[in-house]
């Protein structure tokens, strides 16, 4: 693997490891994350891993562009993939119901499944957390079974409730906060992703795995879940 390093700002470099999204990328992205953090140490301001890349924002009072570039190359020389078992597996309980997951019928219809089978399929894979972004604690996960891949809504909703679980193309995610969004919403979890993120301890981190588990309305309510239907939110 030969990384490409692009100039991307006065004090930032883009390290490109791959060209396309794949679950097997994450072992390398996480290994590069560790190696770059070690190599830059105090000179690192922020490091943003994503599906195929890592953005290295360094302190330009300490390093110039060519020194930073050389440091990336040294850090990634002889890189070995990280242990993919090291990421945590999170089981996320979800109440799949049309009142809080209005796109259940749409996604099921596209897949040629009934709603029960769709739920089983969404719960049937351990999804890889590729990247965090969009909102604190929001994890982009995948890859969703090809039969469930559904394009974003033509008109995004102005408000998607916190805890909403959605699909966009072959990705799946949970909205940590009430926010606008165009994903196909299938259900809701009571897991307080934003509260974790606010403490600086996000539940989901790149390289982790997520398994969704279907629960009843009663169980969702027992977890403190908000059963207000998605479309009725003010």
């Amino acid at each position, binding site marked *: 693997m030969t990384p490409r390093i*692009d*100039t*991307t*700002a*006065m*004090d*930032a470099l*883009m390290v490109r490891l791959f*060209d*396309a*999204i794949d679950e097997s990328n994450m072992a390398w992205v996480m290994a590069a*994350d560790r190696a770059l953090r070690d190599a830059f140490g105090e000179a690192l*301001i*922020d*490091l*943003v*891993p*994503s*599906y*195929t*890349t*890592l*953005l290295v*924002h360094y302190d*330009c*009072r300490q390093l*110039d*562009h*060519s020194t930073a570039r050389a440091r990336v190359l040294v850090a990634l020389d002889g890189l070995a993939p990280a242990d993919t078992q090291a990421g945590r597996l999170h089981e996320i309980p979800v109440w799949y119901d049309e009142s809080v997951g209005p796109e259940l019928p749409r996604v099921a219809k596209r897949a040629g499944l009934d709603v029960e089978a769709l739920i089983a399929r969404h719960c049937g894979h351990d999804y890889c957390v590729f*990247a*965090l*972004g*969009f*909102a*604190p*604690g*929001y*994890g*982009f996960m995948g890859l969703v079974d090809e039969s469930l891949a559904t394009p974003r809504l033509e008109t995004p909703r102005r408000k998607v409730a916190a805890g909403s679980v959605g699909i966009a193309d072959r990705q799946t995610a949970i909205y940590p*906060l009430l*926010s606008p969004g165009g994903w196909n919403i299938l259900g809701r979890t009571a897991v307080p992703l*934003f509260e974790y*993120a*606010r403490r*600086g301890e*996000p539940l989901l*981190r*790149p390289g982790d795995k997520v398994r969704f588990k279907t629960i009843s309305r009663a169980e969702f309510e027992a977890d403190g879940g908000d059963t207000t239907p998605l479309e009725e939110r003010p």
Partner: protein
Amino acid sequence: MSDGIVVKQTGPLALVEDGGRFGVRHLGVTQGGAADWISFRWANWLLGNPLDSAALEIVMGGGLTLEVERATRLALAGADLAATLDDAPLTPGSSFTVRPGQRLVFHQPLAGLRAYLAFPGGLTAPEVLGSRACTVRERLGGLHGDGQPLAVGDRLSWPGEAPAERRLPEGLAPHMPSAGYRLALVPGAQLAHFSGASLYRAFNMAWQVDNRADRMGVRLSGPALRCALRGMVSEGIPLGAVQVPADGQPIVLLNDRQTIGGYPRLGALTPSACASLAQCLPGTEVRLAAQGPGQAQKAHLRQLAAWKA
């Protein structure tokens, strides 16, 4: 309790900001911080504060009214928002004393868009993920830690005593960008995927600051730029990144930008150019000027050295 300054009336937007939230972008948390970080730092410098102390970022003015409860010295820098202290005009780039009962009002932008009001020792606000920067979309930081902008009834307080007066060094006062302002852009990222004609237009024609502009990003309108790249995989976005969505009109991503995104980019404005852009009113004509990373770094270090004097 009479111990600070009370917000009597709000304008379009006033936020507690500091130097920004760092070391947490991999968690999806944005950078935040004063958009015109240069004026912000001068405001703190005028009071002898640590340069990244929390201060108020006041956008447009629009009648924001603050009532003083405790005598102190405050400092103002950045945009001229026609601020008055009991009807006497205040000049940006200076500090001034206030007495209980006086009213500080920010009227409308005469030059620039964002004024910075600094307080002795910095504004008191809870630290959230290492910063007091208020990011409304993320509900983090600010006066109460929950990302809310300044509201009527909010009481501002600060830990320091009124310092001695300090004046801006000759020739170093930040000036607000005027028409034709050249924004330094470090070329990179997906630049090579843009057509030659688009690159010519990007760097040789005038751009207008659109009214779709906020702390997340500022849209520029002008000739359409074409990029051959389609279906890009989302990647980390640095400050000042100039992304070009399908409509060909660039968006410069500022302090509250999303942490990752998938539009092709020409590169990124330098931090100083971002500070200038954050002061441009909609309709301002600007130009993009390519600058290599080495040259940009040198200019940046010169700017940082200004505060060491």
